[in-house]
């Protein structure tokens, strides 16, 4: 019931959006959540090197996504917004979505499919965005498992929405936002109007500001809606093959702290890096 009422409320608001330029907008924000191995996890592959070995690995919200989620919670607290968190994955990702709900999202959507590749995932998210009438999508710059950095930009291109990658600041109210993105050797300030896609990282909020689920949040998260959707029909464009680990380093060569000339000689003659 709560769900039906709030979504009717959003629709009413979005229809009247054009009359509310000077006021805070009640936004519908979609935050994309990747379910990834914990940053301290030891990475191993299955015996035939065809897949990541999940044995004994704890999964967490992708760290880059956490900054975006907290930023969305700020939007909600400052100016009113509803936050939907989304994951494309199998049922095993649900604890991660529940954690996002405990941090402050209002509802969750899981598109029930193996995330075959970024193109597949971006198409799933695009379908959810089109159906849900969202104003803003926040994702992480990349996921710390596949390190592709592809989904947010593909999503923006599919939706024909502006895209801000490596975003470190997003401030604004109403339709227009001032954003800052990292570029080679500096920063770029820019403006964009809703709707747009942000691929965020630290800076969107600071590390110390990251929200951690508290007991009340965890209890509330249990009863928040988590909708499971069927995937839309899309073919993947890439196929993963054999995994491998980096070659082990040869033993470290210790150099006496008093003999930096020797280190310089080694860097020049042996490593050939100077």
């Amino acid at each position, binding site marked *: 019931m709560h769900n039906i009422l709030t979504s009717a409320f959003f629709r009413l608001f979005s229809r009247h959006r054009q009359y509310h330029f000077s006021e805070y907008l009640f936004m519908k924000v979609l935050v994309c959540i990747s379910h990834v191995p914990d*940053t301290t996890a*030891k*990475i191993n*592959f299955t015996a035939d090197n065809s897949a*990541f070995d999940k044995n004994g690995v704890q999964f967490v919200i992708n760290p880059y996504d956490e900054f975006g989620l907290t930023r969305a919670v700020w939007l909600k607290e400052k100016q009113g917004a509803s936050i939907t968190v989304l994951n494309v994955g199998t049922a095993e990702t649900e604890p991660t979505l529940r954690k996002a709900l405990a941090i402050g999202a209002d509802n969750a959507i899981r598109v029930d499919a193996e995330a075959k590749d*970024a*193109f597949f995932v971006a198409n799933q998210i695009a379908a959810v965005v089109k159906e849900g009438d969202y104003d803003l999508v926040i994702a992480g710059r990349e996921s*710390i*498992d*596949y*390190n*592709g*950095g*592809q*989904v947010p*930009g*593909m999503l*923006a*291109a599919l939706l*024909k929405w*502006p*895209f801000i*990658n*490596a975003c470190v600041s997003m401030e604004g109210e109403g339709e227009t936002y001032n954003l800052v*993105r*990292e*570029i*080679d*050797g*500096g*920063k*770029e*300030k820019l*403006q964009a109007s809703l709707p747009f896609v942000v691929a965020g990282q*630290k800076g969107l909020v*600071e*590390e110390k500001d990251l929200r951690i689920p508290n007991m009340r949040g965890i209890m509330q998260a249990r009863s928040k809606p988590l909708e499971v959707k069927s995937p839309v029909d899309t073919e993947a*464009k*890439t*196929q993963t*093959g054999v*995994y*491998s*680990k980096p070659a082990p*380093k040869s033993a*470290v060569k*210790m*150099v*006496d*702290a*008093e003999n*930096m*000339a020797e*280190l*310089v000689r*080694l*860097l020049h003659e042996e*490593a050939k*890096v*100077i």
Partner: protein
Amino acid sequence: MSVLVYLESWEGNFKKNTWESAFYAAKTAEMLGTEAIGLCIGNLNEDPSVAGQYGISKVLHLEDAAFNSFDANNYGAAIAEVAASQGADTIILSGTFNGKALAPALSINADAALLTNVVALPESSSPFSVKRGVYSSKGFNILSSDASKRVVVFVPNSLALEAGEGSAAVESVNAGAGDTKAVEVTEVDRVKGKIPLPEAERVVSGGRGLKGPENWGMIEELAEVLDAGTACSKPVSDMDWRPHSEHVGQTGIAIKPNLYVAVGISGAIQHLAGVSASNTIVVINKDAEAPFFKAADYGIVGDAFEVVPKLTAALKEFKANN
């Protein structure tokens, strides 16, 4: 069919990174038995025909006010249009900030597969497959695609650059910016003389062992004599001793320099994830048990405040004699 490479410029100037892209494209074209064409976008202060030295046969120059400032969708649409007009089925980008930002839009516009975080030249042409870094450099995967077109984004410093003879013909080209509303860039703020970390050939990095931001002078001096970029560990950026943009590691920037010098960094697994792809790692730490030594090529156990100035002095002496 041909290979198209985006030859990125910064305020009209090329960098070594640009020529690495050119060389990567030429080597890929060689493997595919075709030619490599370069594309420059925006006003140029330098002559792009130099790309010929790296194996590029022709350079197309797109100059249009629509591309004066960067927009991921606009640039992606334009490069896709040029690729189509040139019959290019393989498009090469370097993983710079703008390269990474525009690659997804380019792949959608060109209806191409996207292969990113690629750490070496392509492995094979049929199916097209590449070796890419996964799990923040803790692993690699062979990724393949049987799509008819593909965009490859390689990690800067993935191959040794070789310059030969030659000069590329330069022609102007036209392309549209697509129909997505662009962002409006209001200010570009680049730190003068600062070497961007993703492409830096040498990096000097400081950790908590430096005790406070006031002690970064010696890191900067060492970086200057090495012609290196400066970086830091996560705790250092979290404590605001140094800007976020210098944080290297799993949740910061992943780098692949020739030389990485870590000062006062213990070497947590999250830090190693972002820097272990470095060719040569030097670790300076007063704790002989610091885990970073296991990942290092050269280790110095000692007080950073004594070792770093001595190393800087030794490097200055080396430079004076070589």
